[in-house]
């Protein structure tokens, strides 16, 4: 990262990096340090004595069946959101890459949902799927299906998965379309001459060439599903009914902000940090790319 031509002066560059460093230190490193400190200590009920207890907070966390259940639930949630959001984006991108009339309009109409806030998309889904008010939800009831995501945990989880994937499709669509457009048409043409049919061309040529995009999107989508779906879940179900839609991030919020279990939520924060660090490391190691934050 070194240039030959550089400017002299020391105070000016320090003044330039200072704002960013201050924000980083005060609002990122300091809280992260506090979380790590909190995860290894326990404070008595009056907040008078804090003592170091080693890994005890982590041990009790891993002993907690509720936490283990949230871990498994988050894994399933992330896998399904990622699969749904990536598969539908790939489908739309493949067809939007065809030379058809109005494709610029189609693209715009598939890209705008990127702008919809996750929390707001959840509110949209309420009006579609609410058991009494929702335009689809109430019809399910009339058809004799017991649809009520406010009491049925499996239905709630399903709805939260669909709503979370819905918001992420546009993002994936942009990347898959860019990936498809970078495949030289001569490659596809050659396969056509060899007599490979449409689906076979897709499976044996297009899909392998899209692997870097797919792998990159896989990491981005997992991070999105794990961390950015808090608003969607809170607006749709608040983690309920019971614990049915509690993901790890919702649990940190519930335990920390609502139930004020500081030691437990600090330990949870540290585990989440390790997960983000792991995913970011994988991304950089294999791709040299990064996510937006």
């Amino acid at each position: 990262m070194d240039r030959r031509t550089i400017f002299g002066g020391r105070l000016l560059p320090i003044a330039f990096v200072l704002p960013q460093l201050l924000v980083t230190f005060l609002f990122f490193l300091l809280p992260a340090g506090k979380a790590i400190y909190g995860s290894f200590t326990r404070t008595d009920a009056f907040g008078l004595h804090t003592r170091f207890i080693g890994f005890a907070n982590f041990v009790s966390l891993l002993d907690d069946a509720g936490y283990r259940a949230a871990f498994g639930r988050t894994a399933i949630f992330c896998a399904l959101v990622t699969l749904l959001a990536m598969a539908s984006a790939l489908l739309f991108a493949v067809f939007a890459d065809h030379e058809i009339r109005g494709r610029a309009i189609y693209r715009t109409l598939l890209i705008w949902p990127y702008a919809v806030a996750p929390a707001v998309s959840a509110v949209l889904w309420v009006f579609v799927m609410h058991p009494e008010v929702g335009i689809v939800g109430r019809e399910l009831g009339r058809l004799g299906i017991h649809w009520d995501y406010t009491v049925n945990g499996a239905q709630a989880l399903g709805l939260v998965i669909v709503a979370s994937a819905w918001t992420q499709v546009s993002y994936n669509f942009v990347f898959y379309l860019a990936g498809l457009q970078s495949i030289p048409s001569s490659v596809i043409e050659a396969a056509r001459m060899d007599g490979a049919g449409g689906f076979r061309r897709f499976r044996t040529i297009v899909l392998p060439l899209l692997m870097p995009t797919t792998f990159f999107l896989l990491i981005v989508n997992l991070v999105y599903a794990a961390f950015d779906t808090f608003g969607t879940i809170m607006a749709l179900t608040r983690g309920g009914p019971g614990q049915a839609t509690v993901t790890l991030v919702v649990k940190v919020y519930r335990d920390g902000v609502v139930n004020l279990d500081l030691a437990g939520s600090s330990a949870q924060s540290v585990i989440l940090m390790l997960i983000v660090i792991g995913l970011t490391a994988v991304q950089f190691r294999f791709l040299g790319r990064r996510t937006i934050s």
Partner: protein
Amino acid sequence: MHRRIDWPAHLVLLLGVALFAFPVWLVFAGATQDAGAINRGDLSLIPDFSHLGIFLSVLLHGYGEAGGHPAWRMLMISAGMALSIAIGKIVISMLSAYAVVFFRFPFRMAAFWTIFITLMLPVEVRIIPTYAVMADFHMIDSFAGLTVPLIASATATLLFRQVYLAIPDELVEAARMDGAGPIRFLFDMLIPVSSANMAALFVILFVYGWNQYLWPLLVATDPRLDTIVIGIVQLTFGGFTLTPWNTMMAMAVLAIVPPVVVVMAMQRWFVRGLAEVEK
């Protein structure tokens, strides 16, 4: 040459378009209908155009009897937050990338890696301690608290760094021969060459700022600082005797329109920029 119409493509794409447009059309249509009728399960896909006034009344008076704030206030807070975050991130990232690429100073690489680390510390993983830090600084329930802690950006810094590294040394030499100091070089050279990147970043960061939910929920409990996203989610759990469904839907439309307009108006920069930011 006569070209066949590609029916499967049109079919799939129309299906996709409908999948996204349908819920938004539904809330737009629902906003113009009677709350009582919606409550009885009579929500319809056909808007009642004589009731478009609902949007104006939500803007000016909010959800009335429930004691909420007018939506224009929430929109102003959202816009203020989105603009401050987008512009703030662009400015401080541009400056730090400039310092790291074009100057030599003690702990230059340490500074760079410190900024880089923020990539691994999203708000979601440090909810409680961040709240504690904010409380120590008396930043809870303030507009500064809503925006300043979010303006660090490793992504934007890395992007500007790449752009700056790609500028040929000859160009920098020439500018210095002409007597350009560091400040003039920044304004006359770096800002113009990176303007397309800034436009792309602006769209992405504006949407990021506008769509925040966890952060305002955490640090701003004062209803006067409610963003439109916070306001609408609160309304869904309002516990009303008669839920004001139509008002909620009108607010949802108001929350969606501004960021969608920004993305669509700047689509070209956005699409190209997204790919660059991620590279």
